[in-house]
């Protein structure tokens, strides 16, 4: 709190100084990078202009009255009231202005909703708390997670320029192509939003909604999840890289290559040390948000991993929960679709050997493949 007041104290000076560097003070929508976003931008400017105009006229009259018609300057009250003509005029004029506004707005609505004739289609799935991208035509599939290090959030390291707006694996699209988006979610409602493209679409679990954009310029565009989706709602950014057609093709080829390498891993057998090393990375990316990096969880909300009955109990039950999810209604979802066999094996092994757990046993990719086959047979034991 103390530092806050100090900051508040110097704020006046900071504010005055930064007036020259106007870059930090944005007063309007972000610079549009698609046709739809540009139309929204102009629509907003138009309606703001109308609003400011009306505001000046109406409140100009009010303030004139406040100054001229005050008792202290000796103004005597008139006693007029009820004037049908005036009342009709001030009902009709706003109505006409609104009709004038409705027309251009309706045109943009229709354009926004027209998702026909796409050049490519990407399915986007919201998870707590990351985004999954499926390039339906190219067969590319990956997840995109916040890349800002924990230390920057906790304030123990200096913050990067794109603090909280960086991901490990951004969405990549070619410039000038109509990209149709199929947006859904896996657990709760999320909302995929990139302001520069004028796209915001909720991802609703169990339903698929569509939207589209066509990026004008090569560049990197950033957005965030726009629907409250739980604890880390503020920490699931969206990054879209718009690249040239050739760069896009190269990217697709590279993605396919790494997918094959991952598939090969699933048939191997690893030793405990290898699994723990790899598992730690998987844990940090997928589990630490809830169960915490040190495995303590959040009492009452997310169970601890350190010393938990699951991580120190039978390994089959442990694998079962990670693959198929926890009890219904809890935030623990199954990772069967999100992680490869090798990754699940690694993270299970890590959880059983990290912190004070020291179980010494290991799960192998083959165990995971077996667990995938059987549905959640025995209900997972209560993991409080």
């Amino acid at each position, binding site marked *: 709190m103390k530092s806050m007041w100090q900051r508040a104290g110097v704020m006046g000076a900071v504010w005055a100084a930064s007036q020259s560097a106007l870059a930090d003070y944005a007063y309007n929508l972000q610079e549009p990078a698609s046709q739809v976003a540009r139309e929204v931008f102009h629509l*907003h400017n138009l309606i703001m202009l109308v*609003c400011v105009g009306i505001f000046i006229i109406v409140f100009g009259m009010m303030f004139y009255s406040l100054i001229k018609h005050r008792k202290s300057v000796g*103004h005597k009250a008139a006693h007029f009231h009820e004037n049908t003509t005036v009342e009709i005029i001030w009902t009709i004029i706003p109505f006409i202005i609104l009709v004038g506004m409705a027309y251009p707005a309706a045109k943009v609505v229709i354009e926004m909703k027209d998702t026909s004739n796409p050049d490519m289609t990407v399915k986007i799935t919201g998870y707590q708390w990351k985004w999954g991208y499926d390039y339906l035509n190219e067969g590319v599939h990956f997840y995109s997670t916040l890349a800002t290090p924990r230390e920057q959030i906790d304030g123990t390291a200096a913050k990067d320029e794109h603090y909280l707006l960086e991901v490990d694996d951004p969405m990549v699209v070619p410039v000038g192509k109509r990209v149709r988006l199929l947006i859904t979610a896996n657990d709760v409602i999320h909302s995929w939003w990139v*302001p520069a493209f004028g796209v915001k679409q909720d991802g609703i679990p169990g339903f698929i909604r569509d939207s589209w954009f066509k990026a004008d310029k090569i560049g990197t565009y950033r957005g965030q*999840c726009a629907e409250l989706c739980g604890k880390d709602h503020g920490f699931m950014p969206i990054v879209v890289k718009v690249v040239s057609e050739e760069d896009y093709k190269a990217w697709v080829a590279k993605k396919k290559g790494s997918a094959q390498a991952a598939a090969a891993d699933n048939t191997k057998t690893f030793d405990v040390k290898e699994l723990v090393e790899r598992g730690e990375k998987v844990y940090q990316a997928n589990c630490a948000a809830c169960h915490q990096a040190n495995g303590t969880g959040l*009492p009452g909300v997310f169970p601890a991993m350190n010393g938990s009955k699951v991580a120190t109990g039978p390994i089959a039950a442990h694998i079962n929960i990670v693959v198929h999810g926890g009890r219904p*209604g809890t935030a623990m979802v199954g990772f069967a679709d999100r992680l490869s066999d090798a990754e699940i094996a690694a993270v299970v092994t890590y959880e059983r050997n990290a912190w004070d757990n020291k179980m010494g046993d290991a799960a192998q990719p083959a165990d995971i493949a077996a667990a995938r086959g059987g549905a959640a047979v025995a209900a997972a034991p209560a993991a409080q």
Partner: protein
Amino acid sequence: MSDAAHAHDDHGHHAHPTGIMRWLTTTNHKDIGSLYLWFSLIMLFTAGSMALLIRSELFEPGMQLMHPDFFNQLTTMHGLIMIFGVIMPAFTGFANWQVPLMIGAPDMAFPRMNNWSFWLLPVAGIMLLGSFWLPGGAVAGGWTMYPPLFIQGGVSYDLTILAVHIMGLSSIMGSINIITTILNMRAPGLTLMKMPMFVWTWLITAYLLIATMPVLAGAVTMLLTDRNFGTHFFNAAGGGDPVMFQHIFWFFGHPEVYILILPAFGIVSQIIPTFSRKPLFGYASMVYATASIAILSFTVWAHHMFAVGMPVAAQLFFMFSTMLIAVPTGVKVFNWVATMWKGSLTFETPMLFAIAFVCLFTIGGFSGLVLAMAPVDIQLQDTYYVVAHFHYVLVSGALFSIFAGIYYWLPKWTGHMYNETLGKTHFWLSVIGMNIVFFPMHFLGLAGMPRRIPDYALQFTEFNQIATVGAFIFGFSQLIFLVLVLKTIKGGAKASDQVWEGAQGLEWTVPSPAPYHTFETAPVVK
């Protein structure tokens, strides 16, 4: 606030209980009005403190003071308490005090029921606040309670649903009481079209409450059964639809928005003519405008959901109907300005708050018009622009009208004039503080800062810092209000029966302070 008003009234031959029992068993409309207003004030400071914690965390990027989950609990509870624990009870408090006085009735139509509808509120309030100490903490899914996120939570989510039910029951009983009082207990000669605007707006508000409360009750009950009894109303895996919850919730929620603002229109429509010394410009058109707003409020709910992805026809329908609401709202604003025009204006604290209301509420109205444009809304939905919009409507709208009303009627209730210097200090600090908090939020939303996030990207820092400083100015200046109210109850210059030179209406014909029992014989209105 009526302690002083009836310190000497308790010696009748059916003696009233004293101490806490007196307040627990009271059926007097003035007592119950005071209870509502005190409850609301306590909750204002509670939920206001939560807002200051939120703003402290948002003073700079990074997580400094709290865990993200606790941040979400704060934003959720701040919203729930401010709506159901501050604004609604405050307006019901005004209705209890003022409606019988303004229509010349001795009390409310059902005084026992009136007592119950108040005492349900603290029960609900304790349940809501108590849930902070339950395992997992209070609800963190947002005041709108959207599933499936709301299905995930712990036991406090069930408790919150129960609390919402209790508050809903309280509102229903309160509304039935207000409707029957207004319709059945008007003094002879006081026809509907002679009723004060405040009474009119409350009549329409009570209609809206009765029409929509079952919808809220049903919606939260279905959440409860989804959570605990294996139903699948909102679960796609079981054939339900999470978006239907939003439709149902906002079918209640949008009329609720007008429930929170119509009584404010009423209060301001009482105050502006008084201090302009001139009758309300268009009484009839004000009544019709209020009724149109109420009717239109049932046709606009899905404008809260443009981002869920509706068919084009639905988007266009809800966009047009929402824009249409600007017409009757405009009529109201024009009427207030026309009432001031060529009046003989003085600027006591109630009038200052009323003028600030007209000006700042209109800013909230304009940002509402911007948000009504579906394509623009899709950019701004769930951003700080929306936060700015509804705080302009609810803080400088609803809350300022409550302040205005308290300053206006406090002399009648307590028999003492409040301290004008303190009142004006409170006004100027509030109005300046309020704008420092909420105006920059428009820019944050335009620039792309989502709402309900505990941490933000660096480009949003400056405006967030300004907002936080404003929040502390605004928050702490409310202590002046508390001191002022306490001082006025204890003493101060004696208020005349008329109190304000230009005031019109039955409430100004009874003595100040208004005696414990008023209008046992109905006055005749000519």
